[in-house]
């Protein structure tokens, strides 16, 4: 590896030596990553000097780091010099009619119960003026502005609210936190920023649904949510519709910052392209998500439904710094065919009387591998810390795998940690029981799986939960029998 790094450094410095520059007019950066590419990205986005410096620092860290080898996932080595790190958001070809869209996709939409308007939006079909989602978005935005809530793309926030970005960027996930976070910090394309002022309860679920312009944020997305004292926000990321992307590598960073008495609820439905039945193609999803309960009595809650991607590597975590702060993690991770997921959470108890709760439900089918990896760390001064963890695995068929890697570090004797784990199989008995009541096999699997995941699905906002239920069923279609 040291040798590889050396080679890498040689190549990058060599290119630099030759005074190789990137054409700023180009819509796309050339393949590969070096300081010039980082400068190019920053220049393309008209960023201030401090942000460029920040990116460059991250890049230099990244160069010295190694890709993590500990996750229980296997994939061919990624050639980081073979990736294009910047391309201008392309306007999707506008279609005039849903008939022009891949009928397979439409079928999936119908099964998920996605409305016609939403179907059109997702596939890039022009939407009629009356129900134009852009105008809906504007209405929402006005309402939010009245309350002093900032909700915009990351690039916009850099321009409009530089003081907030400067203060909080990297405050929860430092640029050198890990290999993929460092990579993201160097080259992030865009993302979302959200600030909820003191005492404001955000009256609606914030989601990228109506932040339509920033929907194409690309492969290195960055989200930052800051909840000021006593505020509340519920944020939704992703959507249940299948997402295809030409970029195979995705490395996002999400930072949540909760001040005194603030609460952030973050829900994700991830349905990236998982590859075909033979395991070809598919997205590598390496995400760093972390929330900081900075103030006393603050609360951060992660809920995730992970059904897509060829490889999922993510551990939405909570750093419980404030006294009486609370972290929650609710997760359903489904893997089918050749998918691999290594996901879980970290709960770091620093403050006194801090509490955390972990509910993880893994579902493995086909030839997939599904791992839960979680850490509960109670630090020295975290008197009376409490944790409850429940990690369940459900297996379908006999060619898949479920693994649990719980790590518990306790440095304070007053801590109380509970860990429960179960592994079960969808039984032929259960299926037959459903069949005998007239419920066909597909519906039976959906029913059983949704029952199993109920505790997590209940955490999702209502309409999202309904779609997520259908999505689970769809992901597992044909996996029994």
């Amino acid at each position, binding site marked *: 590896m040291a040798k590889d790094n050396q080679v890498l450094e040689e190549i990058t410095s060599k290119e630099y030596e030759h005074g190789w520059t990137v054409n700023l007019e180009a819509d796309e950066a050339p393949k590969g990553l070096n300081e010039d590419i980082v400068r190019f990205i920053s220049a393309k986005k008209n960023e201030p000097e401090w942000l460029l410096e920040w990116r460059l620092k991250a890049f230099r860290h990244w160069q010295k780091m190694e890709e993590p080898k500990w996750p229980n996932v296997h994939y061919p080595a990624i050639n980081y010099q073979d990736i294009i790190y910047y391309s201008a958001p392309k306007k999707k070809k506008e279609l005039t009619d849903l008939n022009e869209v891949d009928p397979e996709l439409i079928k999936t939409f119908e099964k998920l119960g996605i409305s016609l308007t939403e179907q059109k939006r997702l596939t890039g079909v022009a939407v009629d003026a009356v129900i134009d989602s852009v105008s809906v978005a504007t209405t929402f935005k006005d309402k939010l502005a009245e309350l002093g809530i900032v909700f915009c793309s990351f690039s916009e926030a850099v321009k409009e609210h530089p003081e907030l970005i400067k203060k909080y960027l990297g405050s929860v996930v430092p640029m050198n936190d890990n290999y993929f976070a460092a990579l993201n910090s160097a080259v992030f394309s865009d993302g979302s920023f959200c600030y909820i002022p003191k005492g404001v309860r955000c009256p609606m679920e914030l989601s990228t649904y109506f932040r339509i312009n920033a929907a194409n944020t690309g492969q290195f997305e960055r989200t930052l949510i800051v909840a000021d004292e006593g505020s509340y926000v519920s944020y939704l990321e992703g959507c249940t519709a299948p997402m295809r992307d030409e970029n195979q590598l995705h490395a996002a960073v999400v930072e949540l910052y909760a001040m005194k008495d603030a609460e952030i609820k973050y829900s994700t439905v991830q349905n990236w392209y998982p590859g075909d039945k033979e395991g070809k193609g598919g997205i590598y999803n390496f995400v760093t998500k972390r929330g900081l309960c900075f103030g006393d009595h603050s609360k951060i809650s992660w809920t995730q439904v992970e059904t897509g991607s060829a490889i999922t590597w993510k551990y939405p975590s909570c750093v419980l710094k404030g006294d009486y702060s609370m972290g929650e993690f609710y997760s359903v991770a489904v893997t089918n065919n050749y998918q691999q997921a290594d996901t879980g959470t970290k709960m770091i108890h620093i403050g006194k009387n801090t509490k955390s709760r972990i509910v993880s439900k893994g579902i493995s089918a086909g030839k997939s591998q599904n791992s839960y990896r979680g850490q509960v760390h109670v630090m020295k001064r975290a008197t009376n810390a409490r944790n409850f963890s429940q990690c369940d695995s459900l297996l379908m068929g006999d060619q898949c795998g479920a693994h649990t890697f719980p790590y518990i570090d306790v440095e304070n004797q007053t801590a109380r940690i509970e860990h429960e784990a179960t592994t079960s199989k969808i039984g032929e008995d259960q299926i037959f029981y459903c069949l005998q*009541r007239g*419920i066909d096999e597909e519906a039976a699997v959906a029913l059983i799986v949704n029952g199993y995941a109920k505790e997590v699905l209940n955490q999702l906002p209502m309409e999202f939960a309904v779609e997520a239920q259908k999505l689970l069923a769809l992901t597992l279609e044909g996996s029994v029998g």
Partner: protein
Amino acid sequence: MLQIKNLQASIEGKQILNGIDLQVNAGEVHAIMGPNGSGKSTLASVLAGREEYEVTGGEVEFLGKNLLELEPDQRAGEGIFLAFQYPVEIPGVSTVNFMKTAVNKIRAYRGQNALDAVAFLQLMKEKMKLVEIDQALLSRSLNEGFSGGEKKRNEIFQMAMLEPTLSILDETDSGLDIDALRIVANGVNKLRNKNNATIVVTHYQRLLDYIVPDFVHVLYKGRIVKSGGKELAKELEAKGYDWIKSQLADSVIS
């Protein structure tokens, strides 16, 4: 309604049913009795279409259709209901939710519209009363943590909800105390009418004091070896299954 001719079936290569003949008409209650391992539960499972059992011969006709060609869920749609000896637990799925899915799937099979929430609740209330079951129980995860009696009562509730043409009760009395037995039997009796039929599979005569059969059949070594009226059950109770075995032995000798 149901016509079984020379039905033979095996599981994992082991022959269990060796030629069953049985005719069930609308309005009738048939009891299938027999010692352990005689094939009673196998018969129930084969009629419901359980995959592990292989039908190796014979015919089964139900309301003019070849039952053996239908999938288990289609059989349910045609009106066959099996009350399980060991009802299965489905965590996180309430009986209410389970029944809503089942009722509407069966309605769809029959080309009927799905019941809306109001109509479904109304139907449920009515049937709950009929089988004396508590709503609290129906809101819990299906059969999870239920007592033996609660599980069986839940089976009868489901039977009431689905209004089957042919109900097969597989050892419904097993694990029931006398009060639970009475409640379950009451439910079954209230659901009886001239258009439906019931097959009661049981080891003991006890249940037949409450669900009075029109016909009693004794199953032994995968064959119906004796049929009669309700008095046959009493006789069996008094003389034990050895009586049947010795009778059979005699007949072989003579």
